[in-house]
């Protein structure tokens, strides 16, 4: 599951990846003609809308890709950098950059490309950006107020507008296509081209078709996560789901046996987990099962994953989600953690005389009742020093 940094791609290798991403970026920008200021400012005077076409096509392509990857569980959006929104700073910065664009004829990315192929104006432009950043750095106490005000966090525009992600993406695509059409009209008018026939090359039609089909498949199908969580509210579905159980006794035995193959997935609240948690357990929630941390945990080979929660039903829901997400070797703690507590941790021999079978069980439980609390205590001390491992959002941005 993406992003591949930092697990599959380490931090050192990430720099090499950066280099390659940059090569691709620079190559395409130059091929598109972004290394000439004449083409870039054409956008603002109506004679050349190349920038708008490239820019919007790229934005829409990447956006659809991100939505599709996230939809099919290939990209954990909680770990992807979403530029934070500081509203006033974003607007003020954009206005200043716009002025820079019409005066300088480049933006930093295109300026670098221009400089790379020997454009002297590009080099001077980059020198200018250096001075601009320096001014900001030196005048920072003055700018800090605007820079840090109105922090809305890593919010995404469809959340701001209160519409669904699919609707927003659809609107943005419509807007882009509308802009393509409209700007072609302006361009022809400004350049005095009459009756230009819009030739639709087969390859573009094909590409667009594929993009639309892939995009729609993600947009029309209900979000997998939502759909699966909704399904869990259906009691019949949950009750009739084919489930493998593990008894309190077996779990207790495996814990005491220090079985290296077990992983306990604890679905109780953080508070309950902090006050009492079994050795080899990790806390997850039903929603966090969709994320990368859970992916790492549950895809370890040859591990037996036991879901526990206060009640058996919640544990079973975790079991079902994980099964549906394609993970294997799953069990549900029978009777839930409450049963485990009653059977093992707080075990008390019943008054009535046990049957022959029960004698063994009770003997085991009596032993477990002394050993398991000790193991829990040891585990707590061991974990107290360690930091909590949790995947963090990549810090990116300019």
């Amino acid at each position: 599951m993406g992003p591949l940094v930092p697990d599959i791609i380490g931090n050192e290798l990430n720099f090499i990846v950066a280099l390659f991403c940059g090569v691709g970026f620079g190559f395409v920008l130059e091929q598109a003609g972004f290394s000439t200021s004449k083409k870039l400012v054409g956008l603002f005077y109506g004679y050349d809308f190349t920038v708008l076409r490239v820019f919007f096509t790229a934005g829409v392509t990447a956006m659809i890709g991100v939505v599709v990857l996230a939809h099919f569980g290939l990209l954990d959006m909680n770990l992807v950098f979403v530029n934070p929104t500081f509203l006033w700073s974003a607007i003020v910065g954009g206005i200043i950059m716009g002025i820079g664009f019409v005066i300088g004829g480049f933006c930093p990315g295109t300026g670098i490309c221009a400089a790379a192929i020997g454009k002297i104006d590009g080099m001077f432009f980059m020198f200018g950006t250096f001075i601009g950043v320096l001014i900001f750095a030196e005048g920072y106490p003055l700018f800090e107020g605007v820079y840090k005000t109105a922090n809305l966090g890593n919010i995404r525009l469809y959340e701001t507008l209160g519409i669904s992600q699919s609707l927003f993406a659809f609107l943005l695509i419509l807007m882009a296509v509308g802009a393509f059409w409209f700007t072609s009209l302006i361009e022809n008018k400004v350049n005095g081209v009459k009756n230009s026939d819009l030739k639709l090359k087969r390859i573009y039609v094909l590409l667009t078709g594929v993009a639309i089909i892939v995009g729609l498949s993600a947009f029309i199908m209900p979000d997998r996560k939502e759909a699966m969580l909704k399904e869990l509210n259906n009691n019949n579905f949950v009750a009739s789901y084919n489930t493998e159980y593990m008894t309190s006794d077996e779990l207790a035995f495996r814990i005491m046996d220090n079985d290296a193959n077990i992983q306990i997935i604890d679905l109780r609240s953080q508070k309950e987990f902090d006050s009492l948690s079994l050795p080899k357990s990790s806390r997850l929630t039903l929603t966090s099962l969709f994320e990368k941390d859970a992916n790492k945990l549950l895809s370890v080979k040859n591990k037996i994953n036991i879901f526990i929660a206060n009640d058996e039903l919640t544990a079973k829901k975790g079991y079902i989600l994980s099964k549906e997400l394609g993970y294997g070797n799953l069990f549900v703690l029978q009777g839930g953690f409450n049963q485990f507590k009653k059977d093992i941790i707080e075990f008390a021999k019943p008054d009535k005389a046990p049957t022959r079978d029960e004698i063994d069980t009770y003997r085991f439980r009596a032993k477990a009742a002394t050993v398991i609390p000790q193991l829990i205590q040891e585990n707590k001390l061991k974990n107290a020093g360690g930091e909590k491992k949790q995947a963090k959002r990549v810090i990116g941005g300019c």
Partner: protein
Amino acid sequence: MNSTKYMNPYLAGFFLGLVLLATIYFTGRGLGASGAVKSAVVASVQTVAPSHTNNAKFYKEYSEEHPGNPLNNWLVFEVVGVIIGAFLSGLISNRLNFTLEHSPKISSKTRIAGAIFGGLFFGLGAQFGRGCTSGAALSGMAVMSTGGIVTMFAIFGSAYGFAYFFRKLWL
């Protein structure tokens, strides 16, 4: 030999989108440009006036967020890649040339002054916008960041608004 024609803009956009998507999938972050300039500024000031970087707030906050050498930064490597990529593209399309491109109606000096001041505004604005056209607008659009898209509209809106006043530089 004449330079080759530029790529079809939609095709170029499609490829650019794929590069951006791959970047997000691999690294969890988007593309950028101005951030590397920021690293270069911090590194330069550290070399020229080390005591100043220990006192001034901007540099202190920067080193808190980015410990270690400021040039040992993802965006610096990425921008080195951009230079290589653009150079290769210029090479195969026959566009490598030391030229100063400007409208015939203005002098070279005017163009240079325009480029420097334009860059200055862009560099300054990119700090407020927390990214430039690449880092904030394009990458922001890909992940639908509110701030990124607001910045995008502000950049293009402002450029259209001010275009009239600077038309003599271009037309």
